[in-house]
């Protein structure tokens, strides 16, 4: 994907352009998706064996109920704050273990990205764009608000 919103390809052949995009997709999948999901699966295995998932589920159960989610879903949301792909990986692993259902994944979907990778983007976005640090907490609260409202809407209307 180009950096200035305009495409500059040496070729006009749509098949060649498709290949360029597909190659980018392959690189991203191999370099980002696979390592992230592998790590998420290993971490979720640790949490499962230690019983953390169950404990977190019981503590946050009532709160997550508002969004139509099981209590364990809170681990996915906390992970999303660190990394979207790790959160998606964790959600997929919890789905395979029968903790989350398709309905739950649907409710969580927008939140993965609205809340996603805030920690990384502090440096990559707010730092680079030179947004004064004084406003960072405000921007974070906006993201959290976005994610919570989006989950409510998904729960009420679409899931």
């Amino acid at each position, binding site marked *: 994907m180009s950096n200035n919103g305009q495409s500059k390809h040496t070729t006009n052949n749509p098949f060649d352009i498709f290949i360029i995009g597909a190659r980018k997709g392959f690189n991203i999948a191999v370099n980002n998706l696979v390592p992230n999901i592998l790590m998420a699966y290993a971490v979720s295995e640790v949490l499962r064996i230690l019983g953390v998932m169950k404990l977190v589920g019981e503590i946050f159960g009532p709160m997550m109920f508002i969004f139509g989610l099981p209590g364990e879903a809170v681990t996915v949301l906390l992970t999303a704050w660190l990394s979207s792909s790790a959160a998606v990986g964790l959600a997929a*692993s919890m789905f395979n273990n029968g903790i989350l259902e398709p309905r739950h994944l649907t409710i969580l979907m927008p939140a993965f990205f*609205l809340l996603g990778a805030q920690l990384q983007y502090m440096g990559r976005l707010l730092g680079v764009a030179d947004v004064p640090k004084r406003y960072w907490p405000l921007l974070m609260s906006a993201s959290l608000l976005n994610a919570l409202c989006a989950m409510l809407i998904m729960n009420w209307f679409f899931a």
Partner: protein
Amino acid sequence: MQEENKEQKKVSAQYDPEQWKVGPKGFIALIVAILFFSGILVNFPDMKWLSAFDFTTLTGKFGAIKATGKATFVGSGGAGARGGFLFALSLVPSVMFALGMIEVLEHYGAIKAAQKCLTPFLKPLLGIPGLTGLALITDLQSTDAGAVLTKGLYDDGLITKKDLVIMGAWQYSGAGMIANYFMIGSALFANLTCALLIPFALIFIFKFVGAIYVRIMLNLFYKGDFQDEQ
């Protein structure tokens, strides 16, 4: 002679005692490493939780292909690193296909058209000038490129500090949403109970909601900060 000196320096650098200092952290790490890889930790039936720190346990297992003719190579019941690897591998084709299509659509001007559609809404909704449209649209695809363009606008004096904060809010929540949604989110597409584009549209709408919230907060609580600007 000179070469000999160089050689000596090289050797002495290799044996620099500073480099070989080991703190207590190092020894703890070594003990953890030995325990982690040794397989000892699975041998305590009373303390099953210890296996959470065992290499073989976390490597996990590949899923088994039980229902032949129905199950894919991912199988069912996979866990740990092995389960994660096969699952991730099953996502590669959809990511490649999605990015290939986006590249083609972008080439034919879909992004420019999106920018044209977005620009009229910026002033009334967010109170920022229309020329910020390009930076915002770029952020939909690439967080880093969007950030650089935003900084450029501020450095060139084209936007005020308040505009910068509002733009930051718009970009921060759901940053790089097109790329991220189709690259990462595709892992869950098959299991969604609603149309693929609904969560996507919701993320886009909430980018505005978040930015409007920040705009209101700035007007209410940070008014003094921007009095010099106009």
